[in-house]
């Protein structure tokens, strides 16, 4: 069940692998940092990283988070459609690649487990970084624990149902 083809190890259970073939100098990474900075500002200013917003969402007391995620998905879908339709190229002239995701049961079990943690911590992995950045030092513990969780998954991966 678990595909352990070593050449493909990075793609295992991951939707977001790096498809770029062009090699860039190191400073190119600053582009991604810039996108991250904007993203972090949005997270704080729209209060998406707030534990309170997550409680509201999972108690159906507020539309806010549904509005955020819903809008993001619609904008993302339209953008991807436009990229495909007009065959837009990357800055370095590459064709944008999309890959289909295959189903495995981890997407059910893992997602349920993550959902439980999401409500408790008030954070998905993105907001964890932003919570630390906004000065909630104690979230470093949550973050280290999340790292440990990822590591333990890697350790037991072959024994887990997929």
């Amino acid at each position, binding site marked *: 069940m678990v595909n352990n083809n*070593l050449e493909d*190890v990075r793609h295992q259970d991951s*939707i*977001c692998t*790096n*498809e770029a073939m062009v090699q860039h100098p190191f400073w190119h990474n*600053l582009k*991604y940092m810039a*996108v*991250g*900075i*904007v993203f972090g500002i*949005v*997270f704080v*200013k*729209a209060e*998406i*990283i707030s534990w*309170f917003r*997550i409680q*509201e969402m999972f*108690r159906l*007391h507020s539309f806010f988070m549904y509005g955020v*995620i819903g*809008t*993001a*998905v619609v904008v*993302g879908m339209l953008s991807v459609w436009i990229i495909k339709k007009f065959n*837009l190229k990357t800055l370095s002239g590459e064709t944008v690649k999309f890959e289909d*995701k295959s189903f*495995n049961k*981890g*997407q059910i079990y*893992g*997602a*349920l*487990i*993550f959902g*439980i*943690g*999401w*409500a*408790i*911590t008030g954070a998905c*992995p993105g907001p*964890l*970084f932003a*919570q630390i*950045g*906004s000065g*909630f*030092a*104690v979230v470093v*513990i*949550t973050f280290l*624990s*999340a790292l440990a969780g990822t590591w333990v998954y890697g*350790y037991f*991966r*072959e024994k887990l149902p997929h």
Partner: protein
Amino acid sequence: MLEIIRQPWHWSIAGLLIGLTVPTLLLIGNKKFGVSSSLRHLCAMCVPANIPFFQYEWKKEIWNLFFVGGMLIGALIASKFLHNPSNIVVAESTKTVLYQYGITDFSKLMPTQIFNVANIFTLKGFAFFVFGGFLVGFGTRYAGGCTSGHSIMGLSTLQWPSLVATICFMIGGFFSANIIIPFIFKLF
């Protein structure tokens, strides 16, 4: 202008900007939007321990660590310079529930009565930081992605497994917020 930016932003603005991250990352370098992978890269970088899952060239994925590093910096900038001095607006119905658990401070984005350093060595702290964080790291990797990779990137590219994952995120969250969290508060 600065006054407007200081106010909490509307959900549509946030949704628009988050959605635009998808084409931005694709067009500036063929990168797939996803955050939880960064945790895997950090494991691969720091403690691979001969585990096959962590034996890959993490250096090729270093952009992802720059991206999440940027998020941390962006959050710092927003909190320092674009700070909203008022209390966070929380739905009355949520407030009523939280009052029962002793959460009365709504001045910060996080409830300081839970998320403070003094709680690190308490059972409550263990439940909220250590247990909660572990589930986030374990669950996202087991699911192959988080809210960004599955719910936004995956749904944007019409991947049905991502829809399954998103539905399960929500089920887990509803169960946790309405059953597990009240239980944690009852215990500690």
